[in-house]
């Protein structure tokens, strides 16, 4: 399943994360990929409005705040992607009739925004200690005019690209949980990008593991 085309480079920009930086939310994290920076805050499990409550599961709400202005239609579409990915990985049935809120604040956008949102969301949920059945990470691939696959593109590279794809890869089976694409591409290109994303996700999962180990080794 992991056939990687030799000509593509699986290079991610330098990424980093800081956890528990905000005092009020139950969990918070900032995730930085190159120059793209996102701040995530997770609240929950908490009281839920009767109109929104689900009898056997927790209600997850995701809010994406852009840098300037109010959230628009574009943010709603991104919220839907992040929310459904989180819903599939959280064990929602452990907290029926409760609410989980995830707020993602955009600090700076320099490309690969949706994957940065996903990574920040996952780290914030881990920081909040919410039970999850699997971890996930986001990887963005761009296909430029020559057909080369660029992972984790900058905003300039995204603008020049013919197609842009963001995938959420899960940690247990390395399969595609979420897919959001723009531009047209062939089936072969899609499969190559998925393979490249799966390879890139290894680095991110290793990073999650290291950061959690570093954090809890002090307390144990």
């Amino acid at each position: 399943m992991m056939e990687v085309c030799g000509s593509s480079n699986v290079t991610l920009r330098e990424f980093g994360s800081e956890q528990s930086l905000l005092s009020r939310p139950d969990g918070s994290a900032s995730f930085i990929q190159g120059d793209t920076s996102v701040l995530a805050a997770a609240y929950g499990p908490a009281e839920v409005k009767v109109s929104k409550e689900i009898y056997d599961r927790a209600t997850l709400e995701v809010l994406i705040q852009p840098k300037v202005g109010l959230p628009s239609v574009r943010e709603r579409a991104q919220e839907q992607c992040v929310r459904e990915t989180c819903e599939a990985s959280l064990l929602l049935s452990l907290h029926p009739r409760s609410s989980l809120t995830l707020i993602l604040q955009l600090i700076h956008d320099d490309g690969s925004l949706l994957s940065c949102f996903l990574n920040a969301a996952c780290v914030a949920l881990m920081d909040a200690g919410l039970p999850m059945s699997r971890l996930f990470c986001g990887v963005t691939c761009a296909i430029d005019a020559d057909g080369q696959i660029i992972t984790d593109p900058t905003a300039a590279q995204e603008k020049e690209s013919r197609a842009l794809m963001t995938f959420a890869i899960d940690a247990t089976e390395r399969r595609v949980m979420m897919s959001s694409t723009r531009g047209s591409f062939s089936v072969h290109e899609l499969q190559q990008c998925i393979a490249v994303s799966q390879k890139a996700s290894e680095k991110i999962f290793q990073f999650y593991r290291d950061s959690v180990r570093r954090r809890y080794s002090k307390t144990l």
Partner: protein
Amino acid sequence: SLYTSRVAEPLEYHRSFLKDNCRPDGRELSEFRTTTLNIGSITTADGSALVKVGNTTVICGIKAELTNPIVEAPGKGYIVPNVDLPPLCSSRFRPGPPAEQAQAASQFIADVIESSEVIQTEDLCIERGKVNPYIAHTLVLLDCLVIGSDSADSGCITVSLLPTAHLPEVTISTETSKPEVNLEKRHGLHIHRHPVGASFCVFDDSILIVDPTAEEESLSTAQLTVVTDDEDRLCVVHKPGGTSLSGEKLQECISRATARQREIQKLIDKVIHSVKTAQ
């Protein structure tokens, strides 16, 4: 009895059918519902289309307006899609500001139009001013009203029915240098591609179903919409989260979506041809 279990335990009810490789409405797992297309039903709009897939009905109207271009793209017109999911179509939607699903659907249609390059936005440019760049361009408003349960792909079929829109000719009169709209002379939009969407959902992480109804969608663990165009290129692969999908299942969905594109393409051609011969 079977009917009470449908309400009390819907998941078990559907599972009992899936065990025999069929669904409650009698379809196979990979069968689409009957699709009906109708164009030109709204006479006040420049173009309109009605698509019915099973019980899901979507009506789309197109109107063109004169406007100034966006600063970043001075040589192009633009299309503004708007998907409305009123309480009429399903009890899930309340009256008031558009729900998240409606907004996400509008963004989805905008992405399909952009990714598939259905029409070249340069064609919408009437005249690019030399002195003043802000001269008339066409803004095409695409309003989709969903009557009936959901399905993002009905919206896609209506998108590819854009060729039915007949826009009036606009000339810039040399004396007043203001645009003059000639409602008598109409010409169609030049359509480059025909994107068609196909929706799938995954049940219990393993069983793949094609063209789910609203009931099946609410019980599924993952949903996927694939939009393909005439050259077998993928325009949109939209899987907004849910359980993970293996490579083989994804490939299956894509092949089914390409087959669907052919069927719908034939249907669209037939409808447009019949309208032309009727005129």
